[in-house]
């Protein structure tokens, strides 16, 4: 977040609804966006970007941009993200023009291959420089696509996280887990595309439709902006009498939320409900109560909208964002400095040599009395050095030799250690509840 982003209000002409643009990058992105265009989401503009001229020509999207015509001659990036990135950088001006005027840019891409991995981060960066809120919807490859794809996807995801305001991941493998094993490949891909479409549809509704309880573009910005983080979304629909309960159950069962676990760790959650005119106050209450319970401390924003096309149905879209882990976020900001080589134990300097060499030991040490080195035979010196080295590395908090803790936490039962354990359905109730439920206190 180094660039200053002009707020939407500062735009020359005040607009009623924020302009939303959906750009599909790469083959998967094009397909998904084409599907969205057919799904009849009005007020959205769709565009496609690819390095492959043939696919681009087939796509029904209204606006298309071929990347790297000179570099690849329109034959695709061949699964090479670097090539795609170069192609995108070469067309920076055209990309910038493509997303000009958008308040919200949704970058839809399938990561792992060439164009999606390479060009999507570039597009996201350019759009953000233009002042748009950039959300990236990224589909991660299936396991069967191989190790290399996975790695490329990981890398691209890191870059995308840095470039976009928020990245919403759709791990295809998880989606596949939701489906029957006998599903055909075509259907699987169609399904994952539909998940993307659903996600966009939920966001679109949020941004464009007026709600009874308003949650809008500004709220979305509030939730995702600045968090640059692992966001996740889930959407579900239910009808019938118990729809309020079912819809939450469905959302929580969704692999996108890791069975609700991600929700518990989220620090900002946006919930958008849509129903027909028969949407009841009770149902909204019921849904929110359940969600509130799961993420009590998150910054929760609720929107509820009534839409005639949802008669009898209740749809729930949930966007949860968590501040990214400080260790993972700046991972590839710069080529990581080579880790300082840890001196092997036997080489650990001792005595005066240590004081001179180790800059982290301040001058205070110099005032300490340091005995002159005793006269030693070489073997004795060797032995002494070894011993001191062992002690020294412990004192230094074991820079290299730290013993990892096993994840098995042995919980002491405190005052109940000697009494008869209280076992209820196989759980030892003497162990603190928060430990048994895995609630992190941070």
């Amino acid at each position, binding site marked *: 977040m180094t660039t200053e982003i002009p707020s939407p209000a500062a735009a020359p002409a005040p607009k009623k609804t924020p302009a939303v643009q959906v750009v599909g990058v790469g083959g998967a992105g094009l397909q998904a966006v084409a599907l969205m265009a057919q799904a009849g989401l009005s007020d959205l503009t769709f565009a496609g970007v690819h390095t492959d001229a043939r696919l681009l020509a087939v796509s029904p999207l209204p606006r298309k941009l071929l990347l790297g015509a000179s570099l690849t001659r329109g034959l695709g990036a061949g699964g090479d993200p670097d090539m795609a990135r170069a192609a995108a950088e070469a067309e920076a001006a055209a990309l910038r023009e493509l997303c000009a005027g958008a308040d919200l840019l949704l970058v839809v891409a399938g990561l792992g291959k060439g164009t999606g991995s390479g060009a999507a981060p570039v597009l996201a960066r350019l759009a953000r420089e233009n002042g748009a809120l950039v959300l990236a919807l990224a589909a991660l490859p299936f396991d069967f696509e191989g190790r290399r794809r996975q790695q490329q996807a990981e890398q691209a995801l890191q870059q995308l996280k840095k470039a976009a305001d928020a990245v919403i991941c759709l791990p295809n493998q998880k989606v596949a887990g939701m489906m029957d094993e006998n599903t055909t490949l075509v259907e699987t891909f169609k399904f994952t595309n539909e998940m993307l479409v659903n996600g966009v549809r939920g966001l679109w509704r949020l941004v464009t439709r007026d709600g009874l309880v308003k949650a809008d573009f500004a709220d979305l910005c509030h939730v995702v902006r600045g968090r640059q983080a692992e966001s996740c979304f889930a959407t579900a629909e239910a009808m019938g009498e118990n729809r309020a309960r079912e819809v939450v159950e469905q959302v929580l069962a969704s692999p996108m939320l890791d069975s609700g676990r991600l929700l518990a760790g989220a620090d900002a959650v946006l919930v958008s409900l849509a129903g027909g005119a028969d949407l009841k106050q009770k149902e909204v209450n019921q849904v929110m109560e359940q969600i509130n319970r799961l993420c009590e401390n998150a910054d929760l924003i609720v929107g509820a909208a009534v839409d005639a096309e949802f008669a009898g149905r209740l749809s729930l879209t949930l966007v949860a964002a968590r501040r990214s882990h400080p260790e993972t976020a700046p991972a590839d900001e710069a080529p990581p400095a080579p880790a300082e080589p840890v001196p092997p134990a036997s080489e650990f300097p001792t005595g005066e040599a240590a004081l001179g060499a180790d800059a982290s030991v301040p001058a205070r040490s110099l005032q300490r009395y340091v005995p002159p080195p005793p006269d030693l035979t070489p073997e004795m010196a060797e032995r002494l050095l070894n011993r001191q080295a062992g002690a020294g590395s412990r004192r230094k908090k074991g820079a290299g030799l730290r013993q990892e803790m096993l994840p098995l936490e042995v919980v002491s039962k405190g005052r109940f250690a000697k009494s008869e354990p209280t076992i209820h359905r196989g759980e030892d109730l003497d162990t603190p*509840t928060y*430990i048994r439920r895995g609630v992190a*206190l941070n």
Partner: protein
Amino acid sequence: MFSPNPNTITGLEIGTSKVCAVVGNLSPEGTLGIVGVGQARSRGVRKGEIVDATTAAEDIRNALAEAEQMADVEVRSIYLGVSGAHLRGFNNRGRHNIPSVDRDITEEDVQDVLKNAKAINLPAENHVIHVVRQHFIVDGQEGILNPVGMLGAHLEVDVHVVHGVTNRLQNPIRAVKGLQLEVEDIVFNGMASSLAVLGAQEKELGALVIDLGAGVTEYVVYADGIIKHTGVLAVGGDHVTNDLAYGLKISMSRAEALKIEHGSAVVDPAVKGQTVSLNNDHGLPERSLNLEHLRRIMSLRVEEIFEIIADEVENAGLLDYLRAGVFLCGGGARIPHVQRLGERVFGLPVSLGRTKTISGMVATLDQPEFAAAIGLVKFGSFQQDRHRRRGPWLNRVKSTLTQILQRD
């Protein structure tokens, strides 16, 4: 100075955090008033059961002495409250065929059917504490409260049985007897609390009484005026303290103090980021703790207790019968916002149990911690009442004679 009074009833509850003795006076008109209360910090009890008999006996003596002093009576016998994870409650049915030719159900038949209901197949080391009659069934017709004088071929009775392990029940009895006191009867603490807290109307409507003690949590379900379900969960306020001590890495005594001062059953979003500073012996701040963590640890524990109880009650199919809602007593009822949490878990109105059916010393009666001990006194008054109604033997002979005469 002390005068033994036959109308004095004393209830003694040997709790995990305190020993509590309550002295009640039964007036000749049959009204019950509380005249003395004594309590002492309990040191020899874990999870509702005595683990150190010597210190427990000392604490009992102190509590009783205080109560005697206040009531100005000498306590000779007590009604003793018992608890612990070994107590179980279940419903049983006894059957009896009416032998008489005219199929007239008599008092003897009722005694017989009750005896049959008490004949329960239990392990030898178990002792039955209560057999509470629920209702009679005459030839399949349910819901009969008193079958004497009715006609029928089969008489059945539903009873609620509470039983426990004999040796573990003997421990508190022995501790009391060691002080040269008689134990009139032992009573399940949860039942005693429900007697103190519920009026006839709530029993009729259906209510769940939860006694959130320090060591154990007892619960009793009343529906249609009768006890339907009882249970004990050996989890209580001590567990909250222990969780806090573990989670916040502080000593037990400090955890206890923090629990009382800053505890809450719900985590308010407003406490996010707030801290509590711990002072050392000199009153200087030593460490600061995250208030949200404290509340979360506590809230999760209390919520779990409620969830387990809600689960049990629902499995017994009784959750829909609790039209009067849930009543909380015991020290846990003092946790701020515990009602709010309870309402969320049970989906029922939750209120703090108040002992409103006994006169005298209102300040004492209002405290949820004393519910069990007061209930013991009330239980005792029922027993006394029953004895008194039976009266001296002459009356008994007279009534038997009248019965015989009436039958002809």
